[in-house]
């Protein structure tokens, strides 16, 4: 066990996969000498060489498109997209090629590619640096989407993702890069990659969140506790495929569900969870599933992002509203 930031945990996880498998390579803009704009790949080019830690030309389609070719040649590419807002030039390669290759080849081809994307807001950045594009990927059959909320999960999940045989969008909650936590080096202790987890038990209402909003939700649960409400918090961890069993179980117990995410409300993941939970737990729900999300606007100027982003108060308010039914 050791204590480190999420950023460092990701760096350690990447180092481990590079160590374990010579076919694993890293590609991205500025990931070499610079170590990435968030230093997630710090030192890796120095230790593994520029053939395995590749500073890519400035073209996202190129990064993903060549990664596909490398995977077809037997490599296991881990691509970094510098910021959430810059993944879209690669969208064609991701949705029409990466997501479908296994399917269209009737299983003959596999593309074990991990795409790391720092995502989400709250860091006071300029435009295109604070977005939450997960819905685009979750809706795309053939992709898997995961996001850690703690250093321990970051360390484990990056390794599990890279060694998985499916293409995985690995969303890194950039505002939590500097949060510290304990990591468990031993892979026997890790949760399964595609599993959700109850991170706080409670009986009165359930809050489901992922990535950056898990911390916010836990804070809200603490605040609710001081008001006498016992809120259960679930860290979804995997957004595609969704692991909703823990949510169903929880809702059957609490009768109330609030989903929290930074992405805009309309067709944010909360919509899907609402639909499934309502179908599955129709008779258990005391109130409709409520959503606390970013608004249906482009990401605003950062001086007003605190208003845009879900916070403790908005989560609490939703818990309260849930009790109005």
């Amino acid at each position, binding site marked *: 066990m050791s204590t480190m930031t999420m950023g460092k945990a990701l760096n350690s996880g990447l180092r481990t996969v590079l160590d374990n498998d010579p076919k694993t*390579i890293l590609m991205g803009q500025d990931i070499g000498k610079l170590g990435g704009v968030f230093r997630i790949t710090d030192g890796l080019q120095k230790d593994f060489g520029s*053939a395995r830690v590749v500073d890519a*030309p400035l*073209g996202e*389609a*190129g990064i*993903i*498109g*060549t*990664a*596909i*070719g*490398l*995977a*077809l*040649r*037997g*490599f296991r590419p881990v691509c970094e997209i510098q910021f959430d807002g810059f993944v879209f*030039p690669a969208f*064609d*390669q991701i949705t*029409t*090629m990466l997501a*479908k290759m*296994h*399917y*269209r*080849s*009737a*299983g*003959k*081809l*596999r593309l*074990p590619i991990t795409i790391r994307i720092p995502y989400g807001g709250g860091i006071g950045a300029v435009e295109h640096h604070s977005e939450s594009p997960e819905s685009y990927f979750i809706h795309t*059959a*053939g992709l*898997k989407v995961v996001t850690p909320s703690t250093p321990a999960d970051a360390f484990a999940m990056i390794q599990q993702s890279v060694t*998985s*045989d*499916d293409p995985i969008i690995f969303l890194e909650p950039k505002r939590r890069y500097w949060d510290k936590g304990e990591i468990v080096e031993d892979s026997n202790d890790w949760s399964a990659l*595609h599993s959700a987890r109850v991170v706080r038990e409670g009986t009165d209402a359930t809050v489901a969140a992922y990535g950056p909003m898990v911390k916010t939700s836990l804070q809200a649960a603490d605040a609710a506790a001081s008001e006498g409400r016992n809120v259960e918090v679930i860290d979804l961890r995997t957004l595609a*495929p*969704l*692991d*909703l069993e823990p949510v169903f179980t929880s809702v059957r117990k609490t009768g109330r569900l609030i989903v929290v995410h930074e992405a805009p409300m309309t067709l944010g993941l909360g919509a899907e969870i609402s639909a499934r939970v309502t179908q599955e737990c129709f008779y258990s729900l005391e109130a409709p599933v409520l959503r606390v999300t970013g608004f249906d606007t482009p990401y605003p100027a950062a001086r007003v992002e605190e208003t845009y982003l879900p916070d403790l108060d908005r989560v609490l308010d939703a818990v309260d509203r849930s009790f109005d039914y």
Partner: protein
Amino acid sequence: MSEFEMVQLLSPTGERVHHGDYDVDFNDEEYRGLYRDLVMIRRFDAEATALQRQGELGLWAPLLGQEAAQIGAGRALAPQDMAFPTYREHGVAFCRGVDLVQVLSMFRCVDLGAWNPAEHNMHLYTIVIGDQTLHATGYAMGVAKDGAIGSASGTATMAFLGDGATSEGAVNEALVWAGVFEAPLVFFCQNNQYAISESTDHQTRVPLAGRAPGFGIPGIRVDGNDVLASYAVTKAALDRARMGEGPSFIEAFTYRMGAHTTSDDPTRYREGSEVDAWKAKDPISRYRAFLTNNGLADEDFFDQIDAEAEANAIAARTACLALPDPAPLSLFDNVYANGSPPLERQRDEFAAYLDSFADTEEAAK
């Protein structure tokens, strides 16, 4: 479009022309083999078009007119080389030993790509214009990482693309990457003068072979209706790649004599006279004249090839008609290599739904 030197080894009437940099070194058997390839694939292509007309294929993209470019390129490939095709590389597939019925199956819409790329060192067809050029570039980068270049037995990769494709951002990024990483790769661009209805001047005002040097990649234009020149130029570029000397870009100047696909109506956008002019440069009659003039083959040989091509086409037709439709539930297969529980549940629920009809039908008996 301005002028650009075009490599030729055969004149349109089948005279052998000589070129300072390129030549071929075939024995008689090999010369005849190329003729067989050309005729086999043209006949097959005609059969596929017929199958579509008869409702047996959803669509067909004919290669008519582009046989020499494709057979030249396809035969230049060594077994260890890897090819990334568009949706029209039937001639290349043939050279790579792909069962042509597996080419038909995608157009019959019973699958999305049938052959095993590893078995033939030929990737599946790609329909989204240009995307495969980046895959080819990455593959070639991987070859270099594997150290599988630097000798005459090195591995080269070939990316096929059309003239229209050169306008896609993805293709230009492939040129960027191939140039920067000196990928052991050959871009083989069949300029068949059209992207569906758009003549090449909708994509560029200068020759396409001139695109590549700006990315640090040598560009060359070859007469794509000349199978010998197409072979020679491709072979040289592949050898460059396998020796570790970097990427090349070939513009094979040719003509799509038929429709873009069976859904297309070329009379809407081009004159019959233009088509006629290109018929005079037909890749097969030109090559046949060459063989005849040089005593490499006689009528008997030609008849025998025609018969073989006929038999092959009919066999492909028969096998095509026998292709089974996919099982309904198979549409849930192979979405993920490692599975997805929610999807399995979706499949199971749907299977139960389908079963409910079986029950009803059963009950109705």
